[in-house]
């Protein structure tokens, strides 16, 4: 399969600080990658390079064979959608208006349906007329996720499945909604969308992705399946913690396995 997103020899420096050094990544259609690492490892920076936001000092990124620079912003938006870590909205647009922004200039029944479906997927179906500024942090995040899903769908209609870049999509969410987001990402991947998600929670990373890329100090530490990558050695190296993998906690402290969770019927919004 032809790779969709290829990054080669990416280097990013700010002043004397090296944020990324010789990073290479190749992603095919339908592939789901979780990007993990310590704070400041360069995950967000890498995502910004992949989204075309940040121009690297060295190296290049090719999307569907063309360099990112060769796409105009509008064209790029048709091929890839990005969810940032936190988005603050300056004016009190309604949730529906915000989600609709994902469709750009699009109008009509089809867009309305997309918006409605996306809102349902993030469990904000009853929130469409609420001003987004009145929502909680987690609710706002879900609204933006819905917007990004709409953008992805619109681009898909024109260019086929694109790329979904997610920066900490589960950060402010409760477990139920975290699972919703993971499910949504996975369903897109099943349709051929390439997904790259920055996740802090290693368990969720394992749940979401078949491929985990670990960044450490601006370089790629490991790249492989969860089995291969999530090891005590890696955690020690990258996060400086020991003995955390696969052990049942002592003294009856409860732990939660997202893998084993089963979603109940739709609860309260």
């Amino acid at each position, binding site marked *: 399969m032809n790779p969709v997103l290829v990054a080669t020899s990416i280097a990013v420096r700010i002043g004397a600080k090296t944020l990324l050094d010789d990073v290479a990544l190749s992603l095919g259609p339908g592939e789901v990658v979780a990007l993990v690492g310590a704070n400041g490892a360069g995950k967000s920076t890498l995502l910004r390079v992949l*989204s075309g936001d940040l121009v690297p000092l060295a190296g290049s990124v090719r999307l569907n064979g063309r360099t990112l620079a060769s796409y105009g912003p509008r064209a790029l*938006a048709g091929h890839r959608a*990005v969810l940032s870590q936190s988005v603050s909205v300056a004016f*009190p647009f309604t949730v529906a208006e915000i989600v609709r*922004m994902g469709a*750009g200039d699009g109008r009509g029944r089809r867009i309305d349906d997309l918006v409605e479906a996306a809102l349902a997927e993030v469990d904000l179906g009853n929130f469409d007329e609420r001003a987004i500024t009145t929502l909680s942090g987690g609710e706002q995040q879900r609204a933006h996720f819905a917007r990004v899903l709409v*953008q992805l769908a619109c681009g898909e209609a024109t260019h086929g499945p694109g790329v979904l870049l997610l920066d900490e999509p589960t950060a402010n969410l409760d477990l139920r909604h975290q699972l919703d987001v993971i499910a949504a990402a996975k369903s897109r991947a099943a349709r051929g969308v390439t997904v790259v998600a920055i996740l802090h929670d290693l368990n969720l990373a394992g749940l979401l992705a078949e491929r985990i890329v670990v960044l450490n100090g601006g370089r790629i530490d490991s790249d492989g399946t969860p089995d291969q990558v999530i090891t005590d050695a890696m955690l020690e190296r990258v996060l400086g913690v020991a003995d955390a993998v696969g052990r049942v906690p002592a003294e009856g402290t409860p732990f939660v396995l997202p893998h084993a969770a089963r979603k109940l019927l739709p609860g309260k919004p």
Partner: protein
Amino acid sequence: MRVLVPPVLLVVLLLAAAVAATIGAAGIPFGRIAAAFGLAPGNPALVDRDWLVLWSIRLPRIALAIIIGGLLAACGAVMQGLFRNPLADPALVGVSSGAALAAAAMIVVGDRYLSSAGVTLPLEALPLAAFVGALASTMILYRIATREGRTSVAMFLLGGLAIAALANAGLGLLVFLADDRQLRDINFWMLGSLSGATWAKVGAIAPFLVALAFVLPFIARGLDLLVLGEMEAFHAGVSVERLKRTCVVLVAAAAGAAVSVSGVIGFVGLVVPHLLRLLIGPSHRLLLPTAALLGAALLVIADTFARTLAAPAELPIGIVTAVIGAPFFLYLLLRQRALLGP
């Protein structure tokens, strides 16, 4: 409900213009208005004179009010979208400072040096100088805030404050150097007035409104997405730098033109968009043209008061716009506050 607002405002505007056309110091009784427009029979001598007053004085003034009100309000809306701040107004781009400084310089320096050199300036020299000043200060500001092709909105804001402070200092110096007559001239220019309206002036600034109307749909979408932040807007497909550049140029030219013709008229650019956002929501596609309508109506009404309340003298129009708009705006804010709760 909010779809009704633009047509209602259009009706308000037309009504205000019609009423304004019947009011003035030259006293044309209502009955003679129709005759002046040739819609009813009347005494030819009176009809001629009435028509002269209407055509040469009142109508251009009303037209000027409509255009300038529309320009200022629309520019205010654009500024608030660009800076993602409901307290932004065209003055932030450095337009008012630059224009005021250039005008004052022209008044004082012109009088001092040029007149003794035997050079007299045409009347148009002052608005032209003001316009150039507005553009120049915006350009300087833009250069300060832009590095490697990226314009920092925060730098723009701070730079604008610095430029305003500098311009104020310059203005203070000119005020110090000015004599009586020059002082009055500067003062009245700064307070704004639509006096001396001619069709020539209307013709000079009408293109700016047309240009604005033409560009508005294109920037409305961008401004909506800009609400999410610059990075998000880029992700969603907006050419952010191009949008910023376009907005700055547009506002500099449009607001600059308005200010250079009428002097500084405050309040319209700041409060009209803000007020409308409370009524019809923040979507720029609706907000921008609606703001223009409301701004135009407001200025027509304000000018009608400005030229009649203290007749035969004129009140500075900026004062009238503030007195009309501020209490209403306060009322809306309080109502909004009550809705939001503690």
